[in-house]
Structures are given as C-alpha cells and as structure tokens.
C-alpha cells in the first residue's frame, strides 16, 4: 500500500539557552529520529509516557513547529519545502484535535464562527455556509441550533465534539488526534472514541492518534508505535503488538493495563526510576537505565529500529532472547468464566437498553 504520509528521520531539538547572550548550551532532544508511514484509512497510535515526544511528533507532522531535521512527505509532496502561503493551503488536508476541550476553543467566538472560519479560509461552502455549519454539527452529534452559542455554554464532551467539527469542516485526509479523550470522563470517552471511529469509516480518514491509555488505543488503532525518549522503540500491527510485545518497554507498558478480571494471576513488570532527561539522554539505548535486561552492549551501541518480514519493528539488541515465558495480557481463553461477573454485566446491559 502506498503511504499517504511518510515521515523519515524526524528530529526536533529545542535549544537550552543560558547566560547573557543567550548562547545555546545544549538541546532537549524532544524527538530524535522518528520514521513512520500512514496509509489511507489507517490509524497509527503513538503511545508512551509524558515527555516521550509523542505530542511534539504530532505538531511536527502538522508543521506547527519546525523540525530540526527530517522529511515529511504528504501525498508525494515534501511538506518542508512549502513556503508559508503554500503550507496554509495544504493545511486543509491535515487537521488536529486537541486534548483539552476547554483550551482549544476561542472563548470569544460562537460555534458558528469557530466552524465557519476554516470554511471561509479555504473558500468552502460559499453562499450556504450557515447551512453547512449546521450539517457538520449534526454530523458530530450536536444540533444546528447550537451554532449561535459560545463554548462556555457546553460540557467538556460537547466541546470536544465542536473541536472535532472544526477539524472536519475542511474535509481533511489526516487528523492528528492529540490525546482527544484523556481530559474527558470515562463515560464520555467512549462516545467520543466511537464518534471518531464512525467518522473515520465514513470519510476514509487517516488518524495519528496520540495517547497513553492503551485500552483506548487497542480499540481505535490499526498500528501502534511505542515511543520512549524521543524515539520509536517498537512499531507493529495492533494485534501483533498486543499478542507479542518484543521490546522490554512495551512489555512493561502492557503489563500495566488493568484488566477487569480480579481473579486472574499475572506477572507485573514494574519499572524502576524515572525517564532520563531528554536534555541529557543516556548513551546507546535510551531505555537501558531502566531496562531489567540491560547488558554492556546496550550502553555502547544504539539499537536501530529493525523491521521483520511481517512489518513488526523493534529497537532492541536482544529482543529474540527476551520473549516472555507467559503471555503478558491474558487472552480471552485464559480468563475463566465468572458467573457472578457475567450476571452483573448482564444487569448493566439491561438498564442500558431500557434507558
């Protein structure tokens, strides 16, 4: 499949300035050589801890911040070669949904203005803009009458729907979703994730889905890239990654997912210490300071991200030796049937249907 978006060796170093003449004395390596492809209708999830560079990667792809090095190719065009005006026109194809629905809407613009603005900027729906705004609102589960209102009159979930409507108004092909549900209540999260998936199916959208909640990622992603300290340490198809995590960091992440089965015994991998500072990353493999399997070679040589025949990529010298003896996530077969739990679940399903 030919990729809609191709990112190669993306790097962003933020200089650290000190002293009187603001000399750069070092750099925060927020993103340090990230490459991935994104196909039409695909969802690539970027997961990792806070500060691993996943949001920065999203902003770099949209050129909201300028990369230090690397290549971004969209639909065959080199995005970084475009000038200001060309880039503004190209933005129609690439939109973003933000994490905090309270910060992402201008408090002094009505919903109609917020959604109408991108239409006006790109010359869409001339002559029937108000009607189009109503259609878009309906599409995200709001009513056309809401167009006259201001953001402060909506709840968090509704505001996130407005944010989605604004992004979709220009009929983009790629949407960067920067933790779009982590600021919402769990009950609202499901609604918004379902909405995102429906819209994807309907319009053939491609998503870059930035998240740290692996349960959400498992639901929406087609492929997953695990980031650590500005690099992708493992990238694979969703099922391959959940079934057979190869990188020790991915294994630790998966072992931390809560499962709704209190009786199941599982091995937790608990990482010690903190993520090293991206201003002063360790030599060799970035993960070696917290890796339970680290060996001398890990400090000397940075493991490259190597892809096997199935497209499963991992950046670890020793992953072949680290296959866990038991599955990290219990498969559905491994979970014993629990009649009491099933009765409880059934009861909730009934009230749901009745309401």
């Amino acid at each position: 499949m030919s990729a809609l978006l191709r990112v190669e060796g993306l790097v962003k170093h933020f200089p650290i300035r000190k002293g009187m003449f603001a000399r750069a004395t070092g750099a925060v390596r927020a993103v340090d050589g990230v490459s991935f492809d994104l196909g039409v209708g695909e969802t690539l999830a970027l997961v990792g801890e806070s500060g691993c560079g996943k949001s920065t990667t999203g902003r770099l792809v949209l050129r909201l911040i300028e990369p230090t090095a690397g290549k971004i190719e969209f639909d065959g065009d080199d995005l970084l070669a475009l000038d200001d005006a060309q880039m503004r026109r190209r933005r129609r194809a690439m939109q973003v949904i933000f994490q905090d629905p309270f910060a992402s809407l201008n408090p002094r613009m009505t919903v109609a203005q917020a959604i109408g603005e991108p239409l006006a900027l790109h010359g869409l729906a001339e002559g029937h803009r108000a009607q189009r705004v109503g259609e878009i609102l309906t599409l995200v589960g709001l009513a056309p009458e809401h167009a006259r209102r201001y953001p402060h009159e909506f709840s968090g979930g509704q505001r996130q729907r407005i944010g989605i409507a604004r992004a979709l108004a220009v009929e983009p092909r790629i949407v960067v979703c920067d933790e779009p549900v982590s600021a919402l209540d769990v009950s609202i999260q499901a609604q918004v994730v379902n909405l995102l998936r429906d819209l994807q199916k309907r319009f053939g959208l491609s998503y870059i889905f930035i998240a740290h909640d692996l349960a959400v990622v498992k639901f929406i992603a087609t492929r997953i890239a695990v980031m650590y300290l500005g690099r992708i340490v493992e990238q694979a198809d969703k099922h391959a990654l959940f079934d057979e995590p190869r990188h020790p960091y991915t294994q630790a992440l998966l072992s931390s997912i809560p499962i709704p089965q209190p009786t199941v015994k599982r091995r937790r991998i608990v990482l010690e210490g903190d993520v090293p500072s991206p201003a002063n990353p360790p030599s060799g493999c970035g993960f070696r300071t917290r890796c339970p399997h680290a060996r001398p070679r890990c400090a000397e040589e940075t493991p490259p991200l190597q892809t096997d025949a199935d497209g499963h990529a991992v950046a670890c010298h020793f992953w072949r030796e680290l296959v866990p003896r038991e599955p990290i996530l219990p498969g559905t077969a491994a979970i014993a049937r629990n009649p009491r739990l099933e009765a409880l679940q059934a009861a909730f399903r009934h009230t749901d249907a009745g309401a």
Partner: protein
Amino acid sequence: MATLALDAMPKEVSPRRRALRRLGRRPAAMLGLAFVVFFVLIAIFAPWVAPYDPLATSWSAVRKAPSWAHWFGTDELGRDVLARVIWGTRASLLAGVVSVSISIALGVPIGLIAGYTGGWTDALISRVTDAMLATPFLILAIALAAFLGPSLTNAMIAIGISATPILIRLTRAQVLAVKVEDYVEAARALGNPHLRIAVRHILPNVIPPLIVQSTLAIAAAVIAEASLSFLGLGQQPPAPSWGSMLNTAKNYVEQAPWMAVWPGLSIFLLVLSFNLLGDGLRDALDPRHV
C-alpha cells in the same frame, strides 16, 4: 442524546454581556459609572448648565464667597467659579480620554507586534519601553509638554505618549500568555494567516485587562493634565481648566479658599469615579469569576 441537555438553557449570552451583568451587581462600580456619566453630561451641556460666561470678568465681584448669586463664589477677576468648574470639566475629560486614546492607538499595536513576533523586534521594543518606564510618568509628560510647547493639545499628546509604555508592556504580556493557548495553535492549524491570528484570535482575548488599564489611565491622565495646567503647560488662560484654576487659587488660599476647593474637589471626584469603575471592571472581566 447530547442535544437534550441544552434545549432547556436560556438564550445564548456573549462573554461581553456576562461581564456587563456582573458589573451591574457591583454598587461601587455603578457609583463610579454614575459619576463618570454625570461629568460627561456636564461637559457636553456646559453652555446650557453654566450659570455665567466662564470668561466674563466683573470688578465689582472679585473673590466673593459662595452666595445665592455665585454658588461656588468668584475668583480674583470676578469670574464665576461654578461656571469655570463646569467648563473646566471639558478640558479634564478631553485630556483624559484623548490622551488615553493616543496611548491605546500606539501601545496596543506595538505590544501586539512585540508579543506575537518575539525575537529581535520584541527585544528592541521591550528595551525602549523599559527605558521610558524608568522615567516617572509625570516627569516624562512635563518634559514632552515643555518640548512641544504649552497648549492643551500638546499636553494631551505628551500625556498620551507618556502613558504608552505601560500599555505596550501590558499588551505584550497578555499576548505572550494567550498565544500559547491551544485555540491559537488550532487557528494556525486551520490555515489562518499571521495577521488574522493576531487580530481575530489573540486581540479579542487580551482586551479585558486593557479596558481596566485604560480606565485607570484616564484617572491618571486627568491628574496629569491638571498638573501640567497647574505648571502652565496645559490649558492656557483665560480658558478654564481645573489645574490652571488651582494654579491661580494657590495665591489666595487664605483669603478665598473656595477658589481652590471646588476644582480640587472635582478632580478628586472624577479620578475617584474612574478608579472605582476600573476596579469594578477588573473584577467583572476576570474570567475566573464565571
């Protein structure tokens, strides 16, 4: 569905209307507003309200104490003090409003450019602003007024320029705070050009503190105009202004205290009411009071 919850809500309210509603609940601010409106009406209708011609001298009524004929008394040339205070309102209000308008017209765009573009432009603008702020406001205004020559117009220009650095700094600080908001990044992602982001997305969100500052700056400008006139750099005699009235009155404080009391009281009241209004606006426009 999500639409149900909203149907019961009242008609949509804009942020501006909410702020005005909150302002209406503050008695001190409303008192300030009432006095400001009162002074504005006096200034507009001065020719009809004033009992005498403010320039008409009378040798038979020099420095007369307040009486039924002259409520506020008369001055050293026999002019009616009430009429002069009423006409002086024009000079004071004009000086306040015009000079602050000048400083807004200069300060807001410069502050917006400094805050939005950053880099060398910002460094240059900020250093010049710092240098101007290092000089006390009134000293700077006096120096500029003396340089431009004594007249009410020049006094207003001098006060306006002297009040500009504060507005530049305030605007710049607000822009720095707003430009990192998600909705500004969203505006960029949607394909807005820089000018439109600055004017449509950032400017409306930095205005509330500027309104407050402007109200307080009008109060300061009224005092500055009175000070300049007191020093002979503002309104020129015989045209009345509160400051120049005080200037003459200082020679007769013991014999004719009413000459000083009324213009002094007027300055005090006008400045106080602008300050009360400004404080009220600051509270009403604070986004944390939702």
